[in-house]
């Protein structure tokens, strides 16, 4: 097993930051009693969460006597937060383990540090941060998310340090070093990282210049694992943009491979000879990705409303490693979206045409989607969408959202043309506030004309610090709405019949 000994670096950085934070704070704390407008704020808080859940089990549901079908868990989280006027910040959160879950010994430690960081800023230009079990990546609003906590290799919460500098001339540089350990391992030993560190190590450098009318950037990442020889990844990216015709053009390019010396063909790896009209992507590297988009191109036609156009291009090669970011490998897409907004009314119509090809499935073709969105009196929003994809049957979706102080209602109907009898899906979720304390909610879902699901819940709020919620149903409607309205391919819902009771109590001021 490969062991990387770099924990000492983390500890040195931690002591430096602690020293930076603690000395002035203790000096000001004495002044805290003398002057009410203290420059240091100290806050603490806590949350107690209790969950009782009964899952479907034959014969006994809902009052199961089988331990595998009923779950009791409760935990206490305590948080402590110190913030100084000079933007030093210390935050720590400790949590008890869950009780009643015997499936793993991860919670054998009754209390562990669940999250924490200590950060300091110098003259507003240099920031240092030491973090423990946090998600830390930035995206800076780029077209491609090259490093993400929602990726395969760095999906967990990590520990490490982060330095960011902003110099004169709008030049910025950031460096992040983190280790992503096994979650079970993280929660042992009081939540502190034991030495030597083991896990997936990440080095991320981002730098560039960001002016008002243009910007340039560079991203360098590598990921190495001490557990296996296979989890290696190296990536570099270049991004740039400039203002054009009142809008902005952004172009981003990245390449990814197992190791730094795996990159071939120079910095970009382009093959200009293979680039022809209609097959531009043939000249791009198979380990690269390219995204370009022109936004903000608008025409104000007075009483006729406003028109806009947003063309774009996306490419991701077959060998692009998509394990540390949110860029899928092996597809190419060029698209243009035309939109129109009414001059006075809240009404927006758009038409998007795209030409896609997926190298993994070797399927592709044109996609045409149209949408119409309007907001009516009282805040009722209605959205209608259609998808026409080559190789797939058409989809039509209509959705309404009504949200006010008394009720909230979301209704979606979707028709999937299957060639024979169509699939019809229907989701409605409603919530009613019964006075200031109680809220009643429920949902019903018909999936593809075949399966029906329901859920119901009641929530009681006792002031700002207490919430009790009881819910029951045959599914958990968390992502169902997004699946129905955004996904050209209908998804399948998992049957999850259960009854649950949840209590939360907040303490302190966080």
């Amino acid at each position, binding site marked *: 097993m490969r062991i990387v000994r770099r924990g000492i670096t983390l500890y040195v950085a931690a002591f430096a930051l602690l020293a930076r934070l603690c000395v002035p704070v203790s000096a000001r704390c004495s002044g805290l009693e003398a002057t009410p407008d203290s420059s240091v704020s100290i806050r603490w808080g806590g949350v107690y969460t209790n969950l009782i859940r009964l899952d479907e089990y034959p014969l006994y549901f809902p009052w199961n006597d089988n331990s595998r079908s009923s779950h009791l868990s409760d935990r206490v989280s305590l948080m402590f937060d110190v913030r100084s006027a000079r933007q030093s910040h210390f935050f720590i959160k400790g949590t008890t383990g869950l009780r009643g879950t015997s499936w793993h010994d991860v919670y054998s430690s009754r209390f562990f540090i669940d999250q924490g960081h200590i950060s300091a800023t110098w003259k507003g230009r240099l920031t240092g941060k030491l973090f423990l079990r946090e998600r830390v990546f930035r995206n800076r609003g780029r077209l491609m998310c090259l490093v993400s906590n929602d990726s395969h290799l760095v999906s967990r919460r990590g520990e490490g340090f982060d330095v960011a500098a902003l110099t004169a001339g709008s030049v910025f540089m950031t460096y992040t070093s983190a280790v992503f350990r096994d979650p079970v391992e993280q929660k042992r030993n009081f939540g502190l990282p034991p030495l030597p560190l083991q896990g997936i190590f990440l080095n991320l450098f981002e730098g560039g210049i960001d002016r008002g009318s243009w910007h340039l950037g560079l991203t360098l990442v590598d990921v190495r694992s001490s557990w296996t020889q296979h989890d290696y990844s190296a990536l570099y990216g270049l991004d740039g943009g400039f203002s054009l015709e009142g809008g902005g053009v952004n172009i981003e390019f990245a390449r990814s491979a197992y190791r730094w010396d795996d990159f071939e063909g120079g910095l970009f790896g382009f093959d200009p000879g293979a680039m022809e009209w209609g097959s531009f992507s043939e000249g791009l590297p198979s380990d690269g990705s390219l995204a370009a988009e022109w936004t903000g191109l608008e025409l104000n036609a007075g009483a006729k409303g406003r028109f806009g156009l947003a063309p774009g291009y996306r490419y991701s090669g077959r060998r692009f490693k998509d394990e540390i970011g949110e860029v899928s490998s092996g597809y190419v897409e060029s698209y243009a979206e035309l939109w129109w907004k009414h001059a006075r009314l809240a009404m927006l119509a758009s038409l998007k045409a795209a030409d896609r090809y997926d190298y993994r499935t070797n399927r592709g073709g044109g996609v045409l989607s149209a949408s119409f969105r309007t907001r009516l009196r009282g805040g009722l929003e209605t959205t209608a969408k259609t998808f026409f994809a080559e190789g797939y049957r058409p989809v039509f979706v209509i959705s*309404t959202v009504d949200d006010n102080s008394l009720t909230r*209602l979301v209704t979606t*109907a979707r028709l999937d043309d299957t060639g024979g*009898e169509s699939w019809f899906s229907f989701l409605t979720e409603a919530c009613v506030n019964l006075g200031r304390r109680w809220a009643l909610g429920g949902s*019903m879902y018909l999936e593809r004309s*075949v399966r*029906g*699901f329901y859920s119901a819940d009641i929530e009681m709020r006792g002031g700002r610090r207490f919430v009790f919620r009881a819910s029951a149903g045959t599914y958990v409607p968390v992502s169902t709405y997004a699946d129905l309205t955004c996904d050209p391919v209908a998804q399948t819902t998992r049957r999850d019949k259960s009854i649950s009771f949840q209590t939360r109590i907040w303490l302190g001021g966080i």
Partner: protein
Amino acid sequence: MKVSSTIRRNHRKVRRITAASGVLLLLSGSVSAEKPDRFDGTISSARSMAMGGAFSPLADDITALVINPAGLVNTGGVVFYGDYLETGGGAGPWEGKLFGGVERWGIVFGAAGSRKSYDGGTAESQLSTGFAIDVLSGSAGSFISVGGALRWGRVSFELEEGCVPCGVSPGRYSYDALTADLGMMIRPLPFISLSASMENISETGFGSGDYYIPWDRTVRYGAAWLYEDRFTVSWERRHEGERNTDHFGFGLRTAVPLEIMAGMTSERVYGGARWDGNRWRVSAVFGQEAEDVISAGASVEIFFNRPARIYQ
């Protein structure tokens, strides 16, 4: 009770015909929804379907006539209603209904005609008439109402091949039925509605008029909660023969006069939307009849001298 041999023979004959027609219908294999092997007095209106059948305690439109006649008091003035429902995108049966209602002397009268048509020439027609009256009415919207309705129905069907073992020759047959419905609605508070209704069916049977099946009964009872004139939760239990089914429904009105409805029974989902103008209402609804079989339909209501007391 002594039953004459003629009645017994007629009874057996009707059973043979219905059994033979059922076999033929199954063999045809082109119908998604069940065809009636006897008179099916149950009528589903558009709103009732969208609320998952939990309509008896609401009964707030003219179609209450065939579900809970006491709910006719929730209409008023002059109202006309028509709807059309279709199953399986046209592959299954369709049905159309027309209703009319008028209020005179404090009594609301209603009349309706409907036809449900299946593949193979089977059809079920109904004519209904009824009334409802407030027997007690409070100042804040509470009331007790009762109502009654009479319905005449006819099921006609085609036997193309007949059934030699059964002794039934090919041809077109029909039999009649009569129902006497009673209903009661209680609103002790303006936001609570309780209901009970009975549908009593007597079939006169095929051919001669001396054959009859003793009264068959469907009982509905339920409760609804009407919150702030915006949100409605409704529950109905239906007792048919030895079978009980629970129906749940809710409706929520948005600031624009659009009401979204949804319901469920036996884990089948129903839903729809209704636009409520001053003089008219239109609905678009759907219901899951069976796995992979959806009914959909639309309705229109037109009002004249619509009173303000109408709830929703």
